[in-house]
């Protein structure tokens, strides 16, 4: 019993990280249909900048805040300098641009900071919390809480606010959105700022558990992307469920089967789900009119 609980905790900890990364994908995707492969780099930057600012003497909350702000600004810069000039290019080209941005950010990070692995103290100490014979770190609760808060925020944003609907409208039909008075350039800038900020927040929350180095971004992006695909790209609920599902599948496979098959099991489930539900668990059906 305590064994199952421990696997559950392990899965939820990892899943929360995946879910946070997956949530970051949804905004840019909703605004432009672009899967932003630099999302993982935003996560990495969140961790690296916080570490750097903290090591330079800033208190942790301030360091974390500055990391989120700086990363959001970088997201805006990425939109202005890379995505906007290529406006009108097909979505595939834009996705390739984000891959380029990802490589660029990685290169820049290893030059500006360094190539070592870093961490900073957990927010509420390292003493594990014991529940029924299993243990979980307080930091895991922070990550899980962070994922839930971001999910709620996004859900309210997309369904209850005018701005959120404007984002959805922009993705649906940019020209029509412009015609009804939506400033689509602003929507794009905003979505990059938000995505980058959420990515950085994920990095800030996860780093005390996962550690950070200039090259961890790709790993985050891949698992987060898998989570978002499983749940349904663009849907915050899907990102949350997808991320946690992958984490849990991995932990259960590692615990009950063998850790050798852990990644394979997760990907088999993803393939199976996408085979029967091509838009993921909660994906919207595409309604292209000809």
């Amino acid at each position, binding site marked *: 019993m305590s*064994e199952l609980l*421990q*696997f559950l*905790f*392990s*899965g939820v*900890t*990892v899943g929360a*990280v995946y879910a946070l990364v997956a949530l970051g994908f949804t905004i840019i995707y909703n605004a432009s249909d672009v899967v932003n492969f630099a999302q993982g780099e935003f996560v990495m930057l969140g961790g690296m900048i916080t570490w750097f600012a903290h090591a330079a003497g800033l208190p942790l909350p301030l360091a974390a805040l500055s990391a989120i702000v700086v990363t959001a600004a970088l997201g805006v810069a990425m939109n202005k300098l890379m995505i906007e000039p290529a406006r009108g290019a097909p979505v595939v080209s834009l996705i390739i641009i984000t891959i380029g941005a990802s490589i660029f950010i990685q290169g820049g990070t*290893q030059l500006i900071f360094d*190539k*070592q*692995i*870093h*961490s900073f103290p957990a927010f509420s100490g*390292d003493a*594990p919390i014991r529940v029924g014979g299993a*243990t979980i*770190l307080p930091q895991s609760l922070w990550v899980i809480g962070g994922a839930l808060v971001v999910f709620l925020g996004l859900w309210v944003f997309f369904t209850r606010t005018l701005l959120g609907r404007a984002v959805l409208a922009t993705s649906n039909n940019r020209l029509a959105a412009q015609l009804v008075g939506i400033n689509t350039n602003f929507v794009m800038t905003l979505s990059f700022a938000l995505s980058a900020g959420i990515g950085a927040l994920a990095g800030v929350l*996860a780093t005390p*558990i*996962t*550690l950070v*180095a200039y*090259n*961890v971004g790709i*790993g985050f992006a891949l*698992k987060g992307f898998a989570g978002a695909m499983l749940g349904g790209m663009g849907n915050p609920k899907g990102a949350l469920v997808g991320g946690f599902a992958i984490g849990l599948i*991995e*932990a*259960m496979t*590692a*615990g009950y089967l*063998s*850790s*050798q098959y*852990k*990644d394979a099991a997760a990907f088999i489930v993803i393939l199976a789900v996408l085979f029967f539900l091509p838009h993921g668990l909660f994906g919207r059906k595409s309604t292209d009119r000809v």
Partner: protein
Amino acid sequence: MKKTLTTTALGLLAALGATAAMADIKIGASVSATGPAAFLGDPEAKTLEMLVEETNAAGGINGEKVVLVLYDDGGDPNKARTFATRLVEDDEVVAIVGGTTTGTSMSILSVTEDAEVPFVSLAGAIDIIQPVKPFTFKTPHTDRMACQKIFEDMQKRGFTKVGLISGTDGFGASMQAQCKDVVSDYGIEIVADETYDPKDSDMTAQLTKIRNAEGIQAVLNPGFGQGPSIVTRNYKQLGIELPFYQSHGVASAGFIELAGVEAAEGVRLPGNALLIPELLADGDVQKPIVTAYKAAYEAKTGQPVGTFGGYAHDGWHLVTDAIKRAGSAEPQAIRDALEATSGLAGTTGIYSMSAEDHLGLDLSAFRMLEIRDGKWALVE
């Protein structure tokens, strides 16, 4: 008239300068200062740059100036092969030090063996020097030796049933295989064998499984990078009381910092003299060498020394020592002198090469260390 004289003199000087430059001893290097192995290659590149200055400041080798031709292969074996070819054909170096990873080393050695230029590799795998290739040498001890050292210690403590949790990266997988290969020599049985991906962020599931293995007495974690730090934290989180061993892959102060002083308490691992200069006995021949390297490197770069920079240090000294003894900078003569290296103390151990052994280290190069209160302590 006077003017022509000056011009002639200048021309003569230039010509002299050119010949002097031609006579310099050129040593080549290709390391992975960027890319996925950057945290190994970066200190190696910095060490080599520092050492060439040091050697020249001390008057060069046999009175001749040394020039280092350094390339960054970014961890890419194809680039390493290109750079090795360039080093041999265009730069005409007399020896090559480098090959941060096993992959890049294998590329470089295929070029240097053909060109008959001696190559000292800085990578771990035993395949680099086994079977022995005439022009290939290496400085780091092999993962097989690390396994043997660890099992030796376990045997001394009377453990017969142990668990393995290994990374699936090259280092972890190779060491896992080597450990399983030698474990029976020590009367030890592996009762749990789990793995994790180097990018994983939680290994409590695997550790819970290992903890529940019947009769288990100790756990070993062959791994590299951030994985072992996370495993160590999870080990502490689960409150597992079994003795815990890490590999030489994480033998650095950074590991203690990342895993946390509390979680790292009591962890044992095979490390080398460079980690513990102040703990070495006064008569230890490695003591002055590691002390000097540590002081010089830390003063120059402002970063703590690590095992990997130490490999480059040893590679450089093996080559320069060989040139000195050979009294010639001909590749063939350097090769012969390298093979005759005897009792050369480096940071990793004391090298004594032979025609059958192009590594020249034995188990004594490793020292079993234990982490106590966030500091290294020697286990004797």
